[in-house]
């Protein structure tokens, strides 16, 4: 029973969602199932929040390595949640937009969360430079082609590419670095990406069928039978 009910639900929902695309009478049911999905998705926040609290509270309680960071995480989570739930300092009151200007939530978002997130992402530039130096070596023909393509794209994404090759006559404009960069993106890159996408799509169709027909049951925490 524990296994059969989820398999039946998966079969019914999957079949209806497929039918809703091809048969207009089933369209309404497809919409309703999408709304059910969106409602269930909201509960993922409770699950996520609960999980975060459980893991970090456990870490603090047992005073594991770097437990101080867990204190910061829980404080940040709690303060931000309170500010959003009770709309603290919100000029429009409890009915207003959670992100209204002047609210504590938006202040913390603008002055703490935003710069911290951007700083983390900006660190990538430093690591990319270091990784390029160490890993981008012309060890064989494949690596050399990759290296040349990377050079063209790097130059093509800056105005320097245009300055450096603007002397090339219009009849050979494909050789201008920005145009070469565009060609790499819309020809070899496009071909490769499309091949990958078609492969993934076929894989998704096959996996979906296995799930709908109950062949694939690993999502229930059991081995396939």
């Amino acid at each position: 029973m524990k296994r059969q009910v989820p398999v039946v639900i998966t079969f019914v929902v999957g079949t209806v969602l497929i039918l809703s695309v091809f048969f207009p009478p089933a369209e309404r049911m497809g919409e309703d199932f999408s709304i059910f999905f969106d409602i269930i998705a909201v509960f993922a926040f409770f699950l996520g929040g609960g999980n975060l609290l459980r893991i970090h509270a456990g870490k603090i309680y047992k005073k594991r390595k770097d437990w101080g960071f867990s204190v910061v995480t829980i404080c940040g989570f709690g303060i931000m949640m309170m500010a959003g739930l009770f709309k603290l300092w919100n000029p429009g009151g409890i009915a207003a937009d959670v992100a209204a200007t002047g609210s504590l939530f938006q202040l913390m978002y603008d002055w703490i969360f935003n710069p911290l997130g951007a700083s983390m992402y900006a660190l990538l530039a430093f690591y990319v430079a270091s990784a390029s130096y160490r890993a981008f070596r012309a060890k064989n023909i494949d690596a050399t082609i990759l290296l040349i393509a990377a050079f063209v794209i790097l130059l093509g994404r800056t105005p320097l590419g245009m300055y450096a090759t603007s002397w090339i006559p219009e009849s050979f404009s494909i050789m201008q670095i920005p145009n070469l960069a565009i060609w790499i993106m819309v020809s070899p890159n496009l071909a490769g990406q499309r091949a990958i996408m078609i492969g993934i799509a076929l894989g998704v169709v096959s996996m979906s069928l296995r799930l709908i027909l109950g062949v694939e049951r690993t999502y229930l925490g059991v081995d396939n039978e």
Partner: protein
Amino acid sequence: MSNIGLILSIAVIVGGLLWLTIRSLSGREVERRIIFLFIGIAVSIPLLFDITFSEKATPIVKGIYDKIENLPSGSRILISFDYGPSMAPEVEPMSNAFVRHSLAKDHKVVIMGLWATGQSLGASAVENVIKSEFPDKVDGVDYINIGYKAGNQGVLNVIITDFRKMYATDVNGVDLDSVEIFKGIRSLKDMDLMISVGGGFPGIKEWVLFAADPGNIPLAGGSAAVSTPLLYPYYPKQLIGLLGGIKGAAEYESEMKKNYPRFADMPTPGIKMMGPQTLAHMVVMAFIIIGNLSFFFAKRKKSDG
């Protein structure tokens, strides 16, 4: 001042890189902190000295610009803020430019987000772009922020047939049936153009799969440079245009500045960030060359004996 800055930055970077090249040729590896220092210099000097470059819109960028330009006034444009603070420095200039351009053309703008973090960023666009640059535009008449709903692509699955099943009110709790901008809008199919700005999941790809293609609705996108190559397969059939990274934003801003005198003094973060990006790319390329030189010299030394 800008020229002095450019000369100074190039002198510092070129001199340093030459020194590193000589060191590498003698078989010494470059330490990671030295690479970090060079990147630090490359991105900070253009910001300090305000070094900018001229940009020209490429066809993939011009496609979006022309679409917004050629839509009749009063057309409905939906802009989805599908990103968070980590991606904001790269894609926020795009979303701000789209909002600015749409309102300058007197289009009606609907702001929403498939990311929870997008609601606050949409609110920032309302505050920093609409309210400060277009004080005559009225909330609920010329623009509206309907915010975020959980469900990722599930949200699109619903609003492609009916907005009100998912969004009963805007972010301020105002009933959508009572706002003028939503009169005549039932679903996404009533939009004249949809623009998704982001670079992760859910994002432009989901907009193509669950909204633009099934509903036959024009879609444009703005994405972080790292995810742009993955979206090229959708251009030009499913995406009318695509802004890739800071370069795409800079091209769009330069097109707006060129054609609209009122935007001559507008903030242009995209164009400003092209300076650091250009120098950082140069430094990365130089390090790749140095790395390869050192690799080949070490290889030759080994084979010699």
